[in-house]
């Protein structure tokens, strides 16, 4: 236990009050930032979509309707708490928390700022203590994120099941199947990042993306980023993969039976997850709090100190992805369920796996001193053959199915 | 204040693992639902994993942790296979328990 904390330079020495307070402060800050970001995200999304659809969007509560989310929250808070009769009471009450907590936990490992410039490893000095602008930096940081995202399924799954009603159940089964399916692709693209950076620690990953050319999105050859992006969208159950909430088919999805605060928690978790996922994308592929720098020139934001500047960069980058998500929602039509599954299993997973193998081959070739092009071509050939075999098998099974007249 | 001095030794972990294993054993024998029996087997495997990790720490030897890694893989494969069998059985009869599996007596 000690070792894992000892990674944080705060806690290397004896346990004193100051570091403890710093840690507490970080906890509070992360929590508040998270909540705040979520609220803003809700507003942001509504506003942006409204703009895209030529509407005005929320504009009553506060300036630009920015307090709309708060108002909604207060309303939900005071609504009557309903528990369906046929529900499994314990699980029904538990589920929203299971959805909400993981959403926050991921935030703990995202470097929110810090000084990564010039080979610094992100350490900043607060109150005479060295620390990271990050709640925790376990050596297995990125695995932690994966672990949490795999746990996030529980909330949805159990919410649907415990409602004791058919539609939520179907919604939750869909959702969890979707999440499980896309987790593989997600994990494989993360693996590509880990392969090139050689570390699992999130701060380590950030530290290795010092210049624009070193950003993982480029080093890993963009494909893993795309896959991650798509998979993350599916993982978030966001449009165009929001089959969980397909209103036409499933009424309201897994949270149909929920009301008041419990519903608010789900809602919150969903947007929280979007924020976290964007932050994760930034951390993994876009240098996290690193400023944009090409070669030796770094775009420096004046006035702000180096440590805080990282935070600003992070926020800016995250904003871009948040905007992309909203954009998705506004523009893309929803997938059909089988299309979703096909995309996940037959495109994303093979692609991410193949790309991973390609990267690995490069890596091995590099350390063994083989000709880079030969390695690439050979690997590509192998992948091509494998893929055509896969296609062939798929075609065959489709024909078989047609002949037998069964769906699967 | 005294409590802070007590450090759990390896044998604490091992004993905990043994208890967990025992609970799992009882579970496999008591429960009738194949799914739950199966969960109890997972409990047992976890007890083993805990033992491995604790022993690895106490022997200061990484191989114990490696073993856990393999156990995890095995557990995953086992679950897939087991659930496959259970699903294909329960498709016929949705409410089977181990007692209902009485076509084969004994």
């Amino acid at each position, binding site marked *: 236990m000690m070792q894992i904390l000892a990674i944080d330079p705060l806690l290397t020495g004896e346990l004193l009050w100051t570091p403890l307070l710093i840690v507490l402060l970080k906890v509070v800050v992360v929590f508040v930032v998270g909540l705040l970001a979520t609220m803003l995200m809700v507003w942001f999304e509504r506003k942006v979509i409204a703009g895209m659809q030529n509407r005005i969007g929320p504009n009553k509560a506060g300036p630009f309707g920015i307090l709309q989310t708060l108002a909604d929250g207060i309303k939900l808070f005071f609504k009557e708490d309903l528990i369906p009769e046929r529900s499994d009471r314990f699980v029904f009450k538990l589920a929203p928390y299971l959805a909400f907590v993981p959403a926050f936990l991921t935030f703990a490992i995202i470097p929110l700022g810090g000084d990564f410039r010039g080979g610094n490893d992100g350490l900043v000095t607060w109150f005479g203590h060295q620390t990271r602008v990050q709640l925790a930096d376990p050596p297995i940081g990125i695995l932690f994120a994966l672990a949490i995202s795999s746990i996030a399924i529980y909330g949805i799954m159990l919410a649907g099941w415990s409602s004791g009603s058919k539609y939520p159940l179907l919604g939750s089964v869909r959702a969890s199947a979707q999440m499980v399916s896309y987790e593989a692709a997600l994990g494989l693209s993360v693996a590509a990042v880990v392969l090139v950076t050689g570390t699992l620690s999130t701060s380590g990953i950030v530290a290795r993306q010092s210049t624009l050319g070193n950003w993982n999105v480029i080093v890993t050859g963009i494909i893993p980023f795309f896959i991650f992006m798509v998979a993350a969208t599916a993982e978030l159950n966001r449009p165009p993969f929001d089959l969980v909430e397909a209103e036409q088919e499933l009424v309201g999805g897994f949270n149909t039976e929920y009301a008041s605060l419990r519903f608010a928690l789900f809602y919150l978790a969903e947007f929280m997850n979007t924020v976290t996922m964007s932050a994760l994308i930034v951390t993994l592929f876009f240098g996290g709090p690193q400023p944009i720098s090409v070669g030796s020139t770094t775009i420096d934001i004046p006035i702000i100190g180096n440590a805080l500047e990282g935070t600003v960069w992070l926020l800016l980058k995250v904003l871009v992805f948040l905007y992309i998500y909203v954009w998705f929602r506004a523009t893309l039509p929803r997938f059909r369920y089988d299309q979703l599954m096909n995309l996940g299993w037959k495109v994303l997973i093979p692609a991410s796996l193949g790309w991973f193998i390609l990267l690995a081959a490069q890596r091995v070739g590099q350390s063994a001193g083989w000709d880079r092009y030969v390695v690439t071509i050979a690997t590509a050939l192998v992948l091509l053959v494998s893929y055509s075999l896969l296609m062939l098998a798929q075609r065959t099974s489709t024909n078989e199915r047609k002949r037998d007249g069964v769906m699967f | 204040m005294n409590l802070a001095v007590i450090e759990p030794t390896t044998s604490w972990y091992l004993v905990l693992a043994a208890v967990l294993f025992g609970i799992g054993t009882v579970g*496999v024998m008591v429960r009738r639902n194949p799914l739950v029996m199966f969960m109890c*087997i997972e409990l*047992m495997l976890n007890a083993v994993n805990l033992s491995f990790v604790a022993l690895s720490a106490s022997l200061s030897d990484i191989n*114990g942790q490696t*073993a856990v890694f393999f156990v995890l893989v095995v557990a995953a494969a086992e679950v897939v*296979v087991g659930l496959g069998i259970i699903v294909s059985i329960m498709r016929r009869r949705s409410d089977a328990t181990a007692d209902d*599996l009485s076509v084969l007596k*004994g």
Partner: protein
Amino acid sequence: MNALFAENLVGPSISWMGISPLLVLLGGVCVLLLLGSIAPRWPKGSYCVFTVAVSLATAVAAMLQWRDVTKNGPKMLIADAVALDHFALLATIAIAISIALVSLITDDYLRREDYDGPEVYALYLTAAIGGVVMASSNDLIVLFLGLETLSLSLYLLAASHRKRAESQEAGLKYFVLGGFSSAFFLYGIALTYGSTGSTNLSKIASALSGDSPFSQIDAMLLVGIGLMLVGLAFKVSAVPFHVWTPDVYEGAPSPVTAFMASAGKIASFAALLRVLVVAFPTRIDDWRPAIWVLAVLTLLAGSILAVVQTNVKRMLAFSSISHAGFLLVGVEAAGHVGDKDALAAVLTYLLLYAVLVIGSFAVVTVVAGKGDSHTTLDDFRGLGKRRPAMALALTVFLLAQAGMPATSGFIAKFGVIKAAAEVQSYSIAIIAMLAAVIAAFLYLRIMVSVWLADSTDDTKLAIPTGAGIAITLAAIFTIVVGVYPGWLLDATRMVSNLATIAIQAVDPATQTPAG
């Protein structure tokens, strides 16, 4: 460039030739599955032919290695995790023969049951991989993985007849109990690891030998050995851990039952011997009594319970338990200074029994008819009139299982009894022989039905080609080995003393200083 690759990992050298049997099997699986999924309609019987070819290729690869080992001596491969010695190779060959024969039966069976597809064959091959890994492992973790590979395949195979409730339930039962026993085995590994600091069999042995300080944690080690024994006893279906056997054998599709009783047994016993003889030669006095008790219980319970059965598959299941008892007698003898004759005897027994049991189940498969349902003693009535040749073959198999001289069964039993007698375990030898007498009653009952009872059904049974070939080959093998066993015994005698090799094979440099 970065930390992970800064220091290059130098992996162990991999002797590809040494594991060529495994590679052949693995390649076979891959090709089978690949082609099976690309071209789903293979001509009739070609899956079977392919599997037979793969298994024969495996056997050939093993034989080539055999020659190599004979010339250059046994060795340890891949970071001492795999042993390449006669013991492993003989088991490999036996397993390969089993798959070949079983595949022959399976072909017609599958067609009869309206089931196609290469999955069953693929599972045979993967099970074989597991078996070979078990037999040749020199590391408990590897052994465990091999065990699981084998077991998972067997669970699936047992449940593979999806139209038959019995089959599926057999699969489930086998699965739950198998998983249960695996957990025990694994816990045993954990405790052994804790008390010796390694999972490598040779390293365990050397840690336990001589003046090592590990004697202090004997209690944990003993419990570890005990738990491993429990786990393996489940797999070899030794009493009182046999409860799954009759149900699973009865429920599983007949060819699969044959496979479980042959290849499954070979692998489990090979693993049992490996663990006990290689890793714990210094703890013989502790585990021998346990094996003794297991052997006696298995022999008696297997034989006695067999007598009251009325279903032939169940009978053969109990008889296989009784045979497991015989094999345990050999294991017990092998405990004595790792007697190499005993090791050879057990392996020979396994090989011969495998052929016998496959032959028997081949007949059962044919008699059982569509749906695998006609397996009671009454269904065998008058087989001697309906199909004299097949009945004769069955008689040969049954007599051989009873240990009748001039059949391979006698050679098998004789070897084990001889091994027991050489280490002066007379009591267990006599118990074994008495159990054989009790079990003989069971075989007589089947023979009575076959020859001496009148048939209720006079329709001529059709004997499919594959099964016919398998039965003929098995019968010929049974007789030939019974009459002229010299060549086989000469070959198996080369099985060397595992314990000494294993200890020699550990490179002193890699051994961590004890304490």
